[in-house]
Every structure is written in structure tokens, then in C-alpha cells.
């Protein structure tokens, strides 16, 4: 029995929880149970984000998605609660067609993900290249301790176990328009592709959120309830 790669162990744990509770969300008939399964599944997805090195996105997933959007869904479940004997089950025929189509989709997607050889396993190439010349996407996303880790972990052959991602500041600066992770790219300073930040999408999304909030508050205002 070889040494346990703890990154793989936690990946399997979070992946099984996420997939299992997603399937449980589909199979369940009780809307409250579906909401709870979805909360657990998205929490495990946040763990997967952390394992992939996206620490800021994982934290935002927990805060915004699980702590905001799903709480909103649960509010909706509570506000539209109907009598205890209302049954909204789908007929068997619909289930059979849905399962057949999802089986076809799975049969296409899963072999496609394993068809590209470069995706099947990580390698020290990406990490070493990123640190050899100080450029590339790995430059600022992973802290410098990985240098020592990449030398020491010859046996495992990947730098995942020692990477310490720090993405909050580059993301924050990228949203303001300064892409600090591609400062050292070797194109001339006059036209650096990829140097423009995400300031415009940031502003657009802010306006979008404002409009959505105003519209949703207007749509969901209290009106006289219809007689049952």
C-alpha cells in the first residue's frame, strides 16, 4: 500500500458528497429535503474549489451561493408552502425518458473528459514552468513556497500538496482593472493582451444586480392572495 495522497483523499470525499447529494436532490420528492441536499452538495463543491487552488472563489461560493442564494430558495420554499397532502409527483414515463437522456449525456461527457491525455493527471511541468521564468498563470496564484516543495516531492511528482494559493489580491486588483498576474508576460508594453482587467464586467454586473433587486422586489410585492 503506497502512501496516501491526502489531496486525492479529500477530493474523493468532497466529490462523492457533492455528486451523491446532487443525485439525492433529484430523486427526492420533498422540496425541503431537496433544498437541504442542495446545500450540502454546494458546500462540498466549495471544498472542491479549495482543492483546485481557488481559495477566494471557494469562500465566495460558501458566502454568496450557500449563504445567500440557497437561503433565498428556502425562503421561497417557506413562502409557497402548501397543504401537507399536496403531491407533485412526476409520472413514470417522464422519469424513464429523463433517465435515458441523462444516460446518453453521461455516456458522451464522461469519456470526453478522459479522452485528453493531458487532463488525466497533474504534472510538475505547469508548476515548474510557471516558476522558472516568473511568468505565466502560475506566477502569482501560488506562493513561492512551492519551489522548495517541488524539489522535495520527487516521489509524488506533483506540486499540489505544497501549493499555497493566494488569489484574493490578484482577483481584487483584476476586478479593478489591473491584471497583476500577467505583469511579466513577454509582449511589448504598448499592447499587452490579457492585461485589461475585468472592470467593465464588474460595473455591468453591479448594474445588473441593482436592476434585478429592484425588479424582484417589485414583482414579489404583497398582493391579495387568491382563494383556494
Amino acid at each position, binding site marked *: 500500500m503506497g502512501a496516501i495522497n491526502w489531496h486525492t483523499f479529500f*477530493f474523493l470525499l468532497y466529490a462523492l458528497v457533492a455528486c451523491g447529494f446532487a443525485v439525492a436532490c433529484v430523486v427526492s420528492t420533498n422540496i425541503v429535503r431537496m433544498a437541504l441536499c*442542495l446545500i450540502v452538495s454546494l458546500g462540498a463543491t466549495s471544498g472542491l*474549489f479549495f482543492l483546485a*487552488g481557488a481559495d477566494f472563489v471557494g469562500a465566495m461560493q460558501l458566502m454568496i451561493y450557500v449563504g445567500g*442564494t440557497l437561503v433565498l*430558495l428556502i425562503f421561497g420554499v417557506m413562502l409557497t408552502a402548501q397543504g401537507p397532502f399536496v403531491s407533485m409527483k412526476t409520472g413514470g414515463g417522464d422519469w424513464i425518458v429523463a433517465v435515458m437522456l441523462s444516460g446518453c449525456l453521461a455516456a458522451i461527457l464522461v469519456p470526453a473528459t478522459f479522452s*485528453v491525455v493531458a487532463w488525466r493527471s497533474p*504534472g510538475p511541468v505547469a508548476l515548474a514552468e510557471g516558476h522558472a521564468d516568473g511568468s505565466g498563470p502560475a506566477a502569482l496564484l501560488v506562493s513561492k513556497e512551492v519551489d522548495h516543495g517541488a524539489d522535495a516531492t520527487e516521489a509524488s511528482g506533483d506540486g499540489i500538496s505544497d501549493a499555497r494559493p493566494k488569489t484574493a489580491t490578484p482577483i481584487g486588483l483584476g476586478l479593478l482593472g489591473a491584471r497583476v498576474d500577467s505583469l511579466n508576460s513577454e509582449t511589448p508594453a504598448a499592447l499587452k493582451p490579457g492585461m485589461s482587467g475585468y472592470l467593465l464586467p464588474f460595473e455591468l454586473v453591479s448594474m*445588473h444586480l441593482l436592476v434585478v433587486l429592484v425588479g424582484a422586489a417589485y414583482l414579489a410585492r404583497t398582493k391579495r392572495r387568491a382563494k383556494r
Partner: protein
Amino acid sequence: MELLSQPVGVSHFLVVGAVLFISGVVCMAVKRNALGILMGIELVLNGANINFVAFSSPTLNRETAYVLGLDGQLISLFVIVLAAAEAAVALAITLNFYNNHATVDVDRADELKG
């Protein structure tokens, strides 16, 4: 165990994303409760987010040509925000429908048929 000593690559993350996506699609197709359909939408968007984050990782990808870097993480942040906005609007529509019809069964939403 042999299984636990292999490092995971991008493919494993993509499979998880695919499973979430497929379960979201089935949830959207099969559920009669409007909120169940909303939950399917959330699952679909999270499947896509897992794909983006997996490709953005410099440690998971073997070749730098496939690494999205910070772009992947920023895109997934925007997807999270847009999913929250869309969930708010869809919930407002569902509440409006419930206020008018006293049910959230989408099979009963047939007044615009034909």
C-alpha cells in the same frame, strides 16, 4: 490503496462537474415544483463553475496551454453572482404565480396554451 495514491487531474474535476450538470438537467426536466426547477438551475451552474475552476488551476493542469489562470476564477465569480441574480428574479416570478394561483405546480400553468 492504489486508488488513494494517484494524484487527481483535471479529468476528475470535469467528471464531478458533468455529474452535477446532468443531475441539474434531470431536475429541471422532471420536477413539477417550480422551486425544484430552480434548484436544477443552481446545480447546472455549479457544474459549469467546477469546470472553470478546474481549468484555472496551475497545479492541476499538466500543460500550461490549458491553464486559464485568474480568468477562470473571475469567470466563476461572475457566474456565482449572475446565478444569485437569476435565482432572485425566478423566485419573484414564482411568488407572483403563487399569489395568483395558490399553487407552485408548473403543470397548472397552462393559461397561455395554444
